[in-house]
């Protein structure tokens, strides 16, 4: 199947059609429930980064593409915001006491733990984040 693509809209409310896109993709491609849940999560984390970081800093265009190839699904998120490598974010320290705990870094940690391969590169004036999950 060729890759399917959807634009990422400017506000967090626009993540709803993105979430529906992932659900439809997974249903139509026969992705098992557990893997589909992980894909929904990592796409939300990556797409919300585009809105929070990319668009907030002047980016105007972002998109999500998904493609199934045999036993793996490739997720690609592209945006024209300033260079932002999510994998440069530190892993959260789980020993931090409650009152000092923050949520920063958890989304990236989910990408690391819920997909099998992750890569980021600056491609011209665009960020290109690729996540591959075996299903």
């Amino acid at each position, binding site marked *: 199947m060729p890759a399917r693509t959807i634009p990422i809209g400017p506000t*967090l409310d626009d993540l709803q059609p993105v979430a529906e896109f992932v659900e439809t993709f997974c249903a139509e491609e026969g992705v098992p429930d557990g893997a589909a*849940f992980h894909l929904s*999560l990592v796409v939300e*984390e990556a797409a919300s980064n585009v809105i929070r970081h990319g668009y907030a800093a002047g980016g105007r265009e972002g998109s999500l593409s998904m493609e199934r190839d045999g036993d793996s699904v490739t997720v690609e998120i592209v945006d024209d915001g300033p260079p932002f490598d999510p994998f440069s974010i530190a892993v959260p320290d789980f020993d931090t006491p*409650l*009152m000092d705990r923050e*949520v920063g870094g958890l989304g990236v940690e*989910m990408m690391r733990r819920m997909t099998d391969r992750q890569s980021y590169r600056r491609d011209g004036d665009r960020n290109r984040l690729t996540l591959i999950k075996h299903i």
Partner: protein
Amino acid sequence: MQIVEEPFGSGIVVRPIGRLDSTTAPAAEQAIREAMTRSGHRLLLDMGDLDYVSSAGLRVVLAAAKQSNAASGRFLVCDLKPQVRQVFELSGFTRIISIVATRAEAEL
């Protein structure tokens, strides 16, 4: 997202239904913050009807735990579905949030 709230023990139980994600988190955070204040900072978050929690949802849970803790209150979470528990575990939240299996086991 719908949020159902009712009295529970000496406090309040709040039950969000559906998804706690980037889109629904702001309204849920406000609803839980207000319920927390009304309950005298004694709140049970029943996740039995929650199918999905992202880091935006975890932020809401963390804010509630901090709010309760700062007021020397009590904050419990119950009835995590397996996929939601997985997100809690992966995030280290099972170490910092008080979790009980079911509502029947929760005491406020």
